[in-house]
């Protein structure tokens, strides 16, 4: 099965496998669409494809695109029943290969150019921008999208998923954190020079382009998308600046980021399951041109309590990118997993504990990396603990982590303004604190006399006794174990 090349192919594949439902009745862009997506996320239900939107004939919505592992497998062209470790292995294999350069196509071959609005016709209200949650500071144009920019000196292209709120028909404001690629380019270059930064927002991307836009990978996103898809992504030139955007995207907004002007943004329902960050003056985008496909579909991610893309997909890619980083440093890790319910705040790392201090080394690398601001807990367990099995990890944590020697706290590091536990001052200035939970038996303990023995069926009985008990289980009168 090939990976879907566009949002449309993806919807079709999801409907076919029962992973999306077509909603034919009219849905209101004000709260109703958002509420459907939220409930679908909380139930891990099929993604809603809403074909009729109040006030916006001809447009549709696709919500919760990657909020289940089944849809993630479909997006990669895999069997929807693939397990999480299988999907993870495939992601690592594909993203460790050769970068696949994008191809530039002619405007006439780019569906995103089917309708073009310029000058006085530019009005974001002509698009079905949803009010995702009641009480949000505005209607959010960008919840599942990519903001495309180019580094002014190095020339490398960045696609990042940074939320964007509609302020008025031509103005958006968004949360671009200072440690993100775009945040760095703005703070290093554009803002001190007072130069505006050209941008394009692409909405309704192929699911792998969206996955690339929110993956913390050092590979530029157009190449990363090509690697994930196994073929080059098709790009087309913008109308009003020299950026290139995915030709098959549903909607493109072109414009400039203002270096000298900011409008209010937020509050907004966030991936932690709360509205945490305050309304504030944030990065402001002025829109100069809108292009869109006929019958364009707007994509919606509705962030809130688990689980939506904010947790599921980000946990997936953060965990795997950390695994690649730790392996590149020669650390004998056996796996890395972030449980989506941790809202990607806790990294669980399995390792062969072959030398002292390995848990702290892992924590320091993890927190010191580009991924570091996004999580604040690293829990290190040994290679015999199943990192995907929370019961086992929790047991290891509660029994092996020494309260005085095994918990290591790092203060005044980088955090996100979205941490619910952070003080208002810490949120405003992206200040974080971090903790490592070392759940390994110390290597200087005598393995025979000091390390406790795990008392479990698997660990304390001779093989022949285990086999006998397993073989006789139903004969003893127990129902068969699935």
């Amino acid at each position, binding site marked *: 099965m090939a990976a879907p090349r566009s949002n449309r192919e993806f919807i079709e594949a999801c409907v076919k496998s029962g992973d999306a439902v077509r909603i034919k009745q009219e849905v209101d862009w*004000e709260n109703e669409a958002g509420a459907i997506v939220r409930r679908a996320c909380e139930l891990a239900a099929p993604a809603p494809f809403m074909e009729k939107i109040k006030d916006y004939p001809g447009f549709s919505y696709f919500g919760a695109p990657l909020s289940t592992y089944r849809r993630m497998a479909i997006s990669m062209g895999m069997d929807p029943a693939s397990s999480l470790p299988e999907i993870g292995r495939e992601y690592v294999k594909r993203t460790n290969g050769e970068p696949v350069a994008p191809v530039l196509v002619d405007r006439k071959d780019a569906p995103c150019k089917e309708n073009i609005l310029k000058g006085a016709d530019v009005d974001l*209200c002509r698009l079905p921008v949803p009010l995702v949650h009641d009480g949000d500071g*505005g209607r959010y144009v960008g919840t599942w999208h990519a903001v495309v920019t180019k580094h002014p000196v190095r020339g490398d292209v960045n696609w990042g998923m940074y939320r964007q709120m509609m302020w008025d028909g031509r103005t958006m404001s968004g949360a671009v954190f200072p440690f993100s690629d775009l945040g760095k380019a703005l703070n290093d270059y554009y803002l001190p020079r007072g130069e505006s930064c050209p941008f394009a927002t692409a909405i309704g991307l192929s699911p792998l382009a969206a996955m690339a836009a929110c993956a913390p990978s050092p590979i530029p996103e157009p190449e990363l998308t090509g690697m994930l898809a196994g073929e080059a992504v098709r790009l087309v030139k913008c109308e009003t600046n020299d950026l290139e955007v995915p030709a098959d995207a549903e909607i493109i907004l072109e414009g400039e980021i203002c270096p000298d*002007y900011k409008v209010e943004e937020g509050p907004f329902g966030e991936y932690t399951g709360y509205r945490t960050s305050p309304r504030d003056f944030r990065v402001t985008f002025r829109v100069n041109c809108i292009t869109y496909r006929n019958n364009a579909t707007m994509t919606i991610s509705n962030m809130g309590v688990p689980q939506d893309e904010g947790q599921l997909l980000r946990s997936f890619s953060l965990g795997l990118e950390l695994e690649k980083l730790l392996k590149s440093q020669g650390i004998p890790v056996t796996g890395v997993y972030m449980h989506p319910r941790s809202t990607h705040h806790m990294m669980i790392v399995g390792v062969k504990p072959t030398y002292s201090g390995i848990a702290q080394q892992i924590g320091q690398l993890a927190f010191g990396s580009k991924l570091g601001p996004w999580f604040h807990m690293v829990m290190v367990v040994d290679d015999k603990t199943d990192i995907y099995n929370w019961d086992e990890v929790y047991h290891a944590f509660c029994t092996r982590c020494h309260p005085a020697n095994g918990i290591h706290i790092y203060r005044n590091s980088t955090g996100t303004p979205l941490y619910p536990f952070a003080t208002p001052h810490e949120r405003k200035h992206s200040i974080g604190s971090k903790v490592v939970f070392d759940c390994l038996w110390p290597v200087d303990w005598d393995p025979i006399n000091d390390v406790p023995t795990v008392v479990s069926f698997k660990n304390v009985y001779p093989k022949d006794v285990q086999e006998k008990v397993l073989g006789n289980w139903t004969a003893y009168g127990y129902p068969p174990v699935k």
Partner: protein
Amino acid sequence: MNQWEVYVNDVKELAEDAEIELTIRTLNPGIHKYTYKRVRAQLSADLKKHADQLQVRLGRGQLSNSRFSIKVLGEVQRMPAKYL
């Protein structure tokens, strides 16, 4: 009659019977609902004093019980002219 909404951290920010600057969004039905403007305005807790109505949301989107009538005196353009 127009319906407007404002976000504040504290309702005390909304001084009555004085000219104040506010960022307000329209709640009038239609495709422009929820778009913002920066305005000069006068408020009153007397809901009959001005023709337009203003409802208030607090820091994390909670709807406040406070309601005002509002007279929009004019729009304030904060955006540098080069972007207009």
